[in-house]
């Protein structure tokens, strides 16, 4: 069953059934990287453009490999070394790419809503690979997949998201996704990094880390963009780590089988200690592995739909 939509722009507009369908589909792709020939012909002949207006290692590689392992042709396009530097607008770039008839553009962009804008302008599928401080849907899907894998369920689990909630697209997508799947979501950080109306998204707000992780099944630490916000959001890295850095000590009140997640890239000694990041509860590298399966599932479900609709039209 394909996804009944052209694009994957955000989690907010996804139905719970669609989320579950993506997660279920991803399961089927999990073992592909373990085979000798790490490839299936599912999207043979299709073209996927990775369009990255912001630095990214994990997400870009993950999408590229996902597309390649489905046998799609992929090209990468980043804002450095392209016409973007010559002042071309996003719209013009996209229309030019569109003229080369891709089936899908994967867009990472520093401005919230950029993929939504493009989706109205081009007829290929748009996958949001992170837009500004808005959403990062595939990250939330791979996080849900990882939780499901480790815990067997999501419903009624307590999930604490820790750090810069204000600027985090990962936090927003996870809040929507986990709520739709029935988890109890808490957010924690200094009040300077908590958006004012976040409670309205059905989350509990905490400013105290120990309380925020009490009884938690999952603790998700977010990256602090320390260069950008130090000085106004918190006084120093030293103080941040003291109050909000995830350490073994501070995790004592969490559930015994708590899992620790991080979307990467990590700042060790800022939002998470090395002991915790590399410790027995950490599932951070599983997230990366699962990310590929999720992105394969998303590309497959969106593009297979295109194939069918084109064949039947």
């Amino acid at each position, binding site marked *: 069953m394909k996804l009944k939509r052209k694009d994957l722009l955000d989690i*907010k507009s996804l139905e719970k059934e669609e989320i579950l369908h993506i997660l279920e589909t991803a399961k089927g792709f999990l073992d592909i990287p373990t085979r000798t020939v790490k490839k299936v012909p599912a999207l043979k002949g299709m073209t996927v453009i990775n369009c990255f207006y912001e630095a990214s290692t994990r997400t870009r590689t993950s999408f590229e490999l996902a597309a390649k392992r489905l046998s799609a042709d992929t090209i990468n396009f980043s804002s450095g070394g392209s016409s973007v530097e010559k002042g071309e607008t*996003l719209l013009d770039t996209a229309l030019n790419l569109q003229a080369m008839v891709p089936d899908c553009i994967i867009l990472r962009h520093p401005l919230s*809503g950029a993929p939504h804008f493009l989706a109205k302008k081009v007829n290929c599928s748009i996958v949001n690979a992170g837009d500004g401080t808005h959403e990062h849907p595939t990250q939330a899907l791979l996080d849900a997949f990882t939780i499901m894998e480790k815990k067997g369920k999501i419903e009624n689990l307590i999930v604490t998201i820790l750090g810069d909630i204000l600027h985090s697209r990962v936090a927003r997508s996870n809040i929507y996704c986990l709520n739709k799947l029935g988890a109890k979501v808490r957010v924690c950080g200094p009040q300077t990094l908590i*958006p004012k109306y976040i409670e309205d998204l059905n989350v509990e707000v905490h400013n105290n880390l120990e309380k925020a992780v009490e009884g938690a099944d999952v603790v998700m630490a977010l990256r602090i963009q320390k260069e950008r916000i130090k000085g106004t959001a918190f006084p120093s890295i030293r103080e941040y780590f003291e109050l909000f850095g995830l350490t073994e000590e501070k995790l004592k009140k969490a559930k015994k089988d708590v899992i620790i997640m991080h979307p990467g890239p990590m700042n060790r000694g800022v939002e998470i200690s090395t002991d915790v990041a590399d410790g027995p509860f950490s599932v951070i590298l599983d997230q990366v592995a699962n990310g590929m399966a999720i992105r394969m599932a998303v590309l497959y479900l969106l593009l297979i739909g295109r194939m069918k609709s084109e064949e039947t039209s």
Partner: protein
Amino acid sequence: MKKLLKNGRVIDPSQNIDETLDILIEDKYISKISEKIIEKEAEIIDCAGFIVSPGFIDMHTHLREPGFEYKETIETGTKAALAGGFTAVASMPNTNPPCDNDSIVRFIKKKSEEAGFARVLPIGSVTKKREGKELAEMGLMAKFGAVAFSDDGSPVASAFVMRKALEYSKTIGKIIIQHAEEPTLFEGGQIHEGIVSTELGLKGIPSQCETIIVKRDIDLCELTSSSIHFAHISTKESLDYIKKAKERGLKISCEVTPHHLILTEEAVRGFNTLAKVNPPLRENKDREALLEGIFNGTVDVIATDHAPHHKDEKDCEFGFAAFGISSLDIAVPALIDFLVQKNGLPLIRFVELLSTNPAEILKLPFGTLKVGSVADITVFSLRHQTTVNPDKFYSLGKNTPFEGKKFSGRIQYTIVEGKVLYNYGKPPKSLHS
């Protein structure tokens, strides 16, 4: 040449008139207003079934010329004004170069007089280059026709400069119009700070960004015994402060825009750049408070904040999109529909907000149908509909969040200096034609 406006329902708050009357225009002036005037030589303009009111005055318009002629020109903006029922518009000084000296004031006056559509009342800047540092030549600008002073688009951020500006404007006898915005709270903001900004991950502009300056300027008004007019008030709290200040007897007035009365932050959902405007569309409680202010008298004026932009400046990523709504062509039908039809606002109050009060605040000889006054008159219909089609706008700015909306209300005639310059369904004419 005499003209006779027959059988219209005449609404003139300046004389407390609301009845079916005839108006005789001789030369450029109103020469008689009474029942059943018979004047054989006069050209008859049948106003039966229409409302006849003093010409609407938009206190807050961006005509973009000089400097941004690709967005709007004095000619296109004043044509849009006529089609929208405005006989006069006050132009904001955030042009390039800014209107911060008398030569730009004279340029705007000359251009608008040559064009001959709606009147243009230039607003000069409060400070040189609108930088908020040194006072601009208000006296010279006033001499050549500036009707008020504002750094609109930016606030006068310094309390010290604002104090001096209020004192100096009192000397000149023209009002300061403040764009109330605390710059450090605004920085990088895109939309109202609320649930929508949180959900969309767009940097919010808190209500306090406006209210802090409103409160401060009320205090400065008290200090200087001067008067002030607040542009485009968007929050309930600002209006509460203004109401209390008025009750204390301070000389304070304020305006609201049609879009803040009709829309809320919800209009931005889906990253709709057409609803990106500054001050931002706020919450429903704010919208309701503004509406209440319209009824209870706290709001003195409705002004459009007409902000035309080029298509490319809206057809882009939300963060790059320009702030503003093109409004002149359809503001009055929207207001008739929303205020008069849907909310039952008495017409006499409606006309006060769009004509009498702006004229009074700007100390203009307009906004009245008294015998002897210049015949600037707007004739409009409550029965006919206006469908919003930006392609048909006379404004170059097609940026409206109201596209496709049907408003019950229509401009029938716009009369300037006794000449019918706009007649529904026909292109606006120039005074010189």
